């Protein structure tokens, strides 16, 4: 905020002495201001354009739909009458993404803490590069790796969970015990995909914790871990939330990896160890080539819902961060 005021034009300043007057606004300033203002406007126009496009295709889709768009699970937009809804897609998207976040966040924070405050310099640098490299792997590679390597090797874990924790509905497997092409598989692959972003962002904020805060904790007799809890983690709080939201955003919108792993179905099931389920993005990718007019509009309408969900997630994150801004350490 303080930076913003510095860029403001000198309207509020007292009139200058004539001999000092010269040109009050330098050319560089003017160009810079035009450039920054121009690009912000450009960005807004693009976002507005996307919203208008999504909206203009969503309306006809909703008019064509013969059932409730929000509660219907199946997807037959091109049949007569047109029947489609996002209930199963929304469920699958949120389930797989939250699962991914649940798995990736603690691991990502742990990795970031290790790199920033535990590992010796050499190892930390190496690990940092590795994480950055992992973040650059295209998601189709993650998808293929997940399908052909990770999923077959996860059967053991899945069956262990089902056998020992089957009394928890999430881990129950009443219908199928193949343990492949499941929400759990998708969640784990998504978790691996979003791990690099989470740990890279967290590592940056953990590195920025002022040495003074760390020493303050240690001088009070805090152990290594207590120092992390007292000084490092609270300072990195908003960064951790941002990293989680970035990761969640990527998981929510992930197409190929999920499409490759899930055996898509339009059910709503709690049983993450059984095959089936679907997500917005995977559904769009898989259905697009078959879709006719209403089908395309229907897919775009589902995209609109994903857009709104992502927006809500971001707003929630901002709200959480802003709520305790005074305690953020940024002042």
């Amino acid at each position, binding site marked *: 905020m303080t930076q913003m005021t510095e860029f403001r034009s000198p309207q509020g300043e007292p009139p200058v002495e004539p001999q000092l007057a010269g040109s009050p606004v330098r050319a560089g300033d003017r160009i810079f201001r035009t450039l920054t203002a121009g690009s912000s406007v450009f960005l807004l126009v693009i976002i507005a354009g996307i919203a208008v496009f999504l909206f203009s295709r969503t309306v006809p889709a909703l008019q064509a739909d013969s059932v409730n768009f929000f509660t219907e699970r199946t997807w037959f937009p091109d049949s007569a009458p047109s029947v489609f809804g996002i209930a199963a897609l929304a469920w699958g998207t949120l389930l797989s993404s939250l699962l991914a976040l649940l798995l990736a966040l603690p691991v990502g924070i742990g990795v970031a803490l290790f790199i920033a405050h535990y590992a010796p310099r050499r190892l930390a640098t190496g690990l940092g590069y590795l994480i950055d490299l992992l973040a650059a792997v295209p998601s189709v590679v993650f998808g293929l790796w997940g399908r052909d390597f990770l999923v077959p090797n996860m059967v053991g874990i899945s069956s262990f969970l089902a056998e020992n924790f089957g009394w928890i509905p999430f881990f129950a497997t009443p219908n199928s015990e193949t343990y492949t092409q499941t929400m759990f598989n998708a969640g784990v692959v998504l978790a691996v995909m979003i791990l690099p972003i989470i740990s890279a962002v967290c590592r940056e904020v953990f590195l920025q914790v002022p040495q003074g*805060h760390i020493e303050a904790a240690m001088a009070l*007799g805090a152990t290594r871990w207590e120092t992390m809890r007292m000084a490092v983690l609270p300072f990195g709080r908003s960064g951790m939330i941002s990293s989680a939201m970035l990761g969640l955003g990527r998981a929510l919108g992930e197409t190929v990896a999920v499409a490759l792993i899930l055996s898509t179905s339009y059910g709503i099931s709690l049983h993450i160890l059984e095959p089936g389920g679907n997500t917005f993005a995977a559904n769009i990718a898989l259905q697009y080539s078959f879709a006719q007019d209403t089908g395309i509009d229907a897919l775009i309408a589902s995209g609109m819902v994903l857009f709104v969900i992502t927006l809500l997630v971001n707003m929630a994150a901002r709200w959480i961060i802003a709520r305790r801004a005074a*305690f953020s350490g940024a002042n």
Partner: protein
Amino acid sequence: MAKRIDARDLNIYYGSFLAVESVCLSIEPRSVTALIGPSGCGKSTFLRSLNRMHEVVPGAHVDGSVELDGQDIYADNVDPVTVRRTIGMVFQRPNPFPTMSIFDNVVAGLKLQGHRSKSELNEIAEGALRAANLWNEVKDRLDKPGSSLSGGQQQRLCIARAIAIRPDVLLMDEPCSALDPISTMAIEELIEELKRDYTIVIVTHNMQQAARVSDRTAFFNLVATGKPGQLVEVDRTAKIFSNPSVRATEDYVSGRFG
């Protein structure tokens, strides 16, 4: 509480660099000992070796011994965490935890030691804030962030935080150098009061301050940059400033160099 410290043949290293050489220094309980000397002579380094904060820097180590009432804090079976709970520290730049309220800052060390009862924490926090002459200024806004205070108040908050865990010794590294004259005076008065209960060691750049607050003064010097710092002499403050026994001390306190 208020224990004595005896440093014996203490050599302090950063990796292979010997920063402070063979210091023998006794620090009396319930008194203020000032460490003075030109910049880079190892005052901070020596101070931080007294509560094992020195070894926080990678590669940093010491040889020799530092005894707290006869017990070597560098003995193999001594945990540095315990040492730091017994020997508190106040830093040059006020460093309250920005993510914590004023109250939580004061009781941060207590919570580490497992004190949980709300009434106990309230009582100790009030006592520590009163002892740090800060209670009246913050009693109505204990839930506000510590960073909302002025620099001088923040430093007194840090002192309150350090004494809330009832250490035996309080180490202060130029606690006033980031503060204005009024806040400096407040801290100096506070030091005067705290020495009734604590052993205090204070590093200061300001010779008037050393003369005002301390009972004994230790003068550190270094022969040349890159050479290790050494303890030149230690004596009653009045003697150091009026009639020191070493020439270098006289030159320094009279402002002829440094």
